[in-house]
């Protein structure tokens, strides 16, 4: 190998250079700004995590798996996974190998960072070394890999269904420019390297192409224009990158360390949230996942559009999207880069200004504490169980009745904390973004629970359960979901079940499944009490019933369509009945279901055969 030009420069590298400098400058500036926006403790935490070996290694591993290999996408759809990883990993390898070539053949040029990109233009092949042949082969191989990915990407634009996506986002103008320039880069590189292959050498792809081209265009005049074109395509791509969805490429690489550092969204637009917005690749996986997308009017209200509107600063739409969401969490569950859609929305809601703020000072908890304490103290030996059924359960009395019956059968003495009057758990206020009010309510409930002297807080509503576990401070009190509690009672032999012939399909309530990670216990319990079937979309991909309190603006008619869609998913299992573990899902489904809908407690109660004999 020898260099063709002593100065090692040609004007055609300028477009690339401009683009490169711009994008690097932009990203570095952006990164510093985001770091600056982080609250102090978060920033410390983040910087510390970068130098902690364990997290640093994890960062590298996560970036490799997610940004280059797109492991999550492979799990979702093979074609989609191949397309993304071929482009990302192939490109990465081209850059890496390019550097290797420069390092090996002209180490004095290492500091010129356009050199690895346009290596083939600047060198001439004088002798065939084994190493060179291997490198050339690899370069051609990865270029072919990238080209296959680009080909798939083109097909995807026309037929997204082949890739398992019913709907994708509509790219904006700049997105299109970015997209077309990205598509252009690699065919142009192939062209440029092919025209140069008789000078610089090549491999299985470029040498035959060079031979073919030389049959038609027998001189080297075409050589330079193709390199120009290649450089211009690169330049355009890099200049528009910060303003397109391709920003996710650099952003995600920073999001992963931030997440690994344990940061949380503290501000709806700044810091960690901003990083999430920038990391959104706009792939649109969340559109199909979103329960609202059954109706066309709501398609533009899923997380990908929230991110897009935040980037555009369209306040009106940001508010609409933030308020409409059911907070079911499915977009987060399916998101490839880990954008926390629901948390972003709650953060948006939390900065809203209200002229009226709830004031719970007027609520005197003393009588409630007294009533609960009097009951709790009556209980005999063993854990002092306090049962919190939650507001919604008053409208689904069958749950309370079944829980009471089951506890009676198991011989568990308990106190029903909110049988007559009770306070809300605070989660609806929290999800509405009224965090201070929610905390005030939480303090009131804490007073009651701690004042009652109970040692176990049994919760049947997953909406309440989530906030009890996440936001309450209840020292000495074990907060337990009723599914877990009944599972324990079964293990202890205090409840005995006999399988009935009814076959249930279990609907994972958003708050219990995605919210609290409880998927298996209810299934295990139902499996012991009756037959169990699975719906097509289940567990983390379960479809929200549409009744969620998360949405502030969705009206009744729109919710109905979602409920019916969720029911259709459940009907698909061909089960006789539907079981769930949330009062809100229960009443929402019961409104429209063509088959019985039962709560977990009801299912268990109906199959309990023997009573506990103390």
């Amino acid at each position, binding site marked *: 190998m020898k260099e063709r030009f002593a100065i090692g420069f040609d004007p055609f590298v300028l477009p690339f250079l401009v683009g490169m400098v711009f994008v690097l400058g932009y990203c570095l500036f952006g990164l510093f700004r985001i770091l600056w926006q982080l609250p102090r403790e978060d920033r410390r935490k983040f910087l510390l995590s970068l130098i902690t070996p364990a997290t640093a290694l994890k960062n590298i591993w996560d970036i490799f798996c997610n940004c280059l290999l797109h492991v999550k996408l492979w799990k979702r759809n093979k074609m989609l996974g191949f397309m993304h990883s071929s482009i990302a990993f192939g490109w990465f390898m081209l850059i890496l190998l390019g550097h290797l070539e420069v390092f090996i053949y002209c180490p004095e040029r290492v500091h010129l960072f356009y050199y690895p990109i346009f290596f083939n233009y600047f060198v001439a092949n004088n002798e065939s070394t084994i190493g060179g042949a291997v490198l050339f082969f690899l370069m051609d191989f990865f270029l072919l890999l990238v080209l296959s990915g680009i080909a798939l990407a083109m097909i995807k634009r026309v037929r997204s269904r082949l890739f398992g996506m019913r709907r994708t986002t509509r790219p904006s103008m700049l997105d299109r420019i970015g997209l077309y320039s990205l598509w252009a880069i690699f065919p142009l590189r192939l062209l440029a390297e092919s025209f140069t292959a008789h000078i610089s050498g090549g491999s299985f792809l470029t040498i035959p192409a060079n031979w073919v081209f030389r049959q038609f265009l027998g001189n080297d005049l075409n050589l330079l224009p193709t390199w120009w074109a290649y450089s211009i395509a690169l330049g355009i791509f890099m200049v528009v990158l910060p303003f397109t969805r391709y920003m996710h490429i650099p952003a995600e690489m920073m999001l992963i360390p931030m997440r690994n550092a344990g940061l949380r969204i503290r501000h709806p637009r700044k810091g960690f949230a901003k990083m999430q917005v920038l990391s959104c690749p706009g792939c649109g996986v969340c559109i199909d996942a979103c329960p609202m997308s059954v109706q066309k009017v709501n398609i533009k209200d899923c997380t990908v559009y929230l991110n897009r509107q935040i980037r555009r600063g369209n306040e009106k739409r940001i508010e609409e999207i933030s308020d409409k969401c059911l907070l079911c969490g499915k977009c987060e569950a399916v998101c490839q880069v880990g954008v926390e859609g629901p948390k972003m929305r709650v953060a948006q809601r939390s900065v809203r200004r209200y*002229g009226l703020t709830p004031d719970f000072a007027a609520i005197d908890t003393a009588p409630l504490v007294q009533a609960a304490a009097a009951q709790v103290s009556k209980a005999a030996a063993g854990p002092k169980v306090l049962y919190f059924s939650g507001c919604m359960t008053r*409208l689904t009395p069958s749950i309370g009745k079944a829980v009471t019956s089951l506890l009676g059968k198991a011989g568990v003495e308990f106190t029903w904390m909110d049988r007559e009057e009770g306070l*809300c758990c605070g989660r*609806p206020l929290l999800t509405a973004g009224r965090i201070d009010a929610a905390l005030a309510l939480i303090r009131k409930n804490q007073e009651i629970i701690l004042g009652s002297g109970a040692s176990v807080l049994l919760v049947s509503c997953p909406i309440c359960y989530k906030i009890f576990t996440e936001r309450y401070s209840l020292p000495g009190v074990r907060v337990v979901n009723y599914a877990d509690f009944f599972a324990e009672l079964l293990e202890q032999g205090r409840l005995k079940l006999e399988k009935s012939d009814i076959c249930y399909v279990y609907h994972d309530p958003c708050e219990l499944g995605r919210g609290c990670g409880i998927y298996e216990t209810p299934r295990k319990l139902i499996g012991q009490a009756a037959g169990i079937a699975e719906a097509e979309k289940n567990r983390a991909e379960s479809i929200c019933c549409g009744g969620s*309190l998360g949405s502030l603006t969705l009206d009744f*008619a729109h919710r109905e369509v979602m409920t019916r869609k969720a029911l259709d998913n459940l009907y698909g299992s061909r089960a006789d009945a539907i079981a769930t573990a949330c009062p809100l899902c229960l009443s929402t489904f019961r409104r429209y279901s063509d088959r019985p809908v039962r709560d977990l407690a009801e299912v268990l109660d109906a199959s309990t055969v023997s009573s506990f004999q103390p």
Partner: protein
Amino acid sequence: MIDFGFGLSRSSSVKLDEVDLGLYHKLEALEPGVRVCMSCGSCTSTCTAGPWSGMSVRKLILNLQRGKDVEKMLSCCMLCGKCTMVCPRGINTRHLILSLCRIYGKKQ
């Protein structure tokens, strides 16, 4: 002015045509559902906050339609959503309440 030891008392009747419906109209724009309330009272009786603050979405809507103040009533609302669940006309009462809380802010 002479102190007679008694004075004019304000009329308790509401002059419907002179009522300031500004707040109600603003709310209507944000949550049109407010128009279809038929005053059945389901929301009031199911209200979690009711025992503490006299919260009643029915009264709230009616008071707004009569130009009366509703601020006090809203103070204990926990947004628990039971009223939304029981409303036979499908009114999004939570959004109604949140919207009202916001409008109050803009007024001041």
